[in-house]
């Protein structure tokens, strides 16, 4: 019984490591000499990694993982507990329901979907924060989805390389 489980799940630590690296990238401080406004250009690394793993391993990475990662991100960023969790659930749901189509797409077509999904993720966060009265509407926050869409092909290639190299399944 255990041996069967072993052959099926393999190298899931790679998934965990990529999520941790994405979290580090998400909070790494900009150098002192660049203006703080450049922070709006920071892509949503964690969402990109989440989308990739949901497309690649839809039977393993789904709503539950998305929710748990979201809670950790909430603690990491000091946002309301559950805020990123709910946004990540929606992202994972979209990616999981589109995964067969997404796998057929070229990488730039995928970028378009990533743009829309990350944009929705940002909107959910902005909505929750503005309903709670924690921040005001700011169009610049949507820049992150543009940057994420631009970086998607490279993130995709890197994660696909890692998945094949370590035979994650």
């Amino acid at each position, binding site marked *: 019984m255990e041996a069967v489980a072993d052959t099926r799940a393999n190298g899931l630590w790679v998934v965990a490591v990529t999520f941790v690296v994405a979290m580090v990238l998400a909070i790494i401080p900009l*150098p002192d000499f660049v203006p*703080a406004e450049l*922070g709006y250009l920071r892509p949503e690394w964690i969402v990109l990694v989440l989308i990739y793993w949901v497309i690649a391993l839809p039977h393993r990475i789904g709503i539950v993982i998305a*929710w748990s990662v979201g*809670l950790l991100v909430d603690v990491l960023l*000091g946002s309301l*507990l*559950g*805020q990123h969790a709910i946004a990540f659930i929606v992202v994972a749901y979209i990616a999981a329901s589109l995964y067969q189509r997404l796998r057929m797409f070229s990488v730039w077509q995928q970028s378009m979907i990533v743009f829309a999904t990350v944009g929705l993720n940002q909107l959910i966060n902005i909505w929750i924060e503005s309903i*709670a009265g924690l921040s005001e509407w700011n169009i610049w926050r949507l820049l992150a989805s543009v940057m994420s869409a631009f970086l998607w092909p490279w993130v995709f290639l890197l994660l696909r390389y890692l998945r094949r190299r370590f035979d994650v399944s």
Partner: protein
Amino acid sequence: MVGFCVLSFVLIVVDHLSDYLDDIRAGLTILVTPVLVAADIPGREAREISEMFSSRDEMRSHIKILEQDLTLLKAKTAKMAALTAENNRLRDLLGSAAKLQDNVLVAELISVDPDPEKHEVVIDKGSADGVFVGQPLLDAQGLMGQVISLSFFTSRVLLISDRSHSVPVQVSRTNLRLIAQGTGVTNRLELMHVQDTADIRPGDLLVSSGLGNRFPVGYPVGIVDRVEHDPGRPFAVVTAIPSAALDRSRHVLLVFTEEKLARAAEVRRNGSGG
């Protein structure tokens, strides 16, 4: 899917309206502390490498300057001690409570919030070091902010420049009491509801007034840099530059004020007695 969404919504509402979830947050923060530390490594290494490459002469002159500063500060502290003693004697004569020196704990910044709109930082001291929510934070030049959430080894600090933060201040020249609100820009504070006829001018030093029992009295908060009288508006527009280097300081001081220490001692006494 729906279940998790509902659960998240409940969490959001509970977290926003109450503090029941603070312990869960504190526990989960311990899990993500390695991420915070890892994100701080590149900046730390860059500083250490630039130190390694600075020449012997530079280091020597740096040490010399520091030694001079130290001598100067020691002399000032000695004078300060005499003044405090005298002040307490005078207060004694007036029948008011003696003022004790505030105790401080040195902490270091380990993370800055990546969102440019949120002026929050994480420091490397937490409830294990006796830090409490609402504790004021200083740097060498002035008031920086206050602790808003705690974990075991780290705590999150809201800076005075955040849009949601206000400090009760007074103008040290005239004792005029005002409220300084953050603007979302690190180098500007805004003074709210300043009468058009108020005696305030550029260059005035603002110190914390101690009203509201959150911040201790007399720490520098900022310097007024612009006073504008607009006949179309009921109040004057006054802005100030924060004294603390909000976006540059790495070494900061957590203040334990006398009342807090007294309360902590009382709790400890009661705890050991009962």
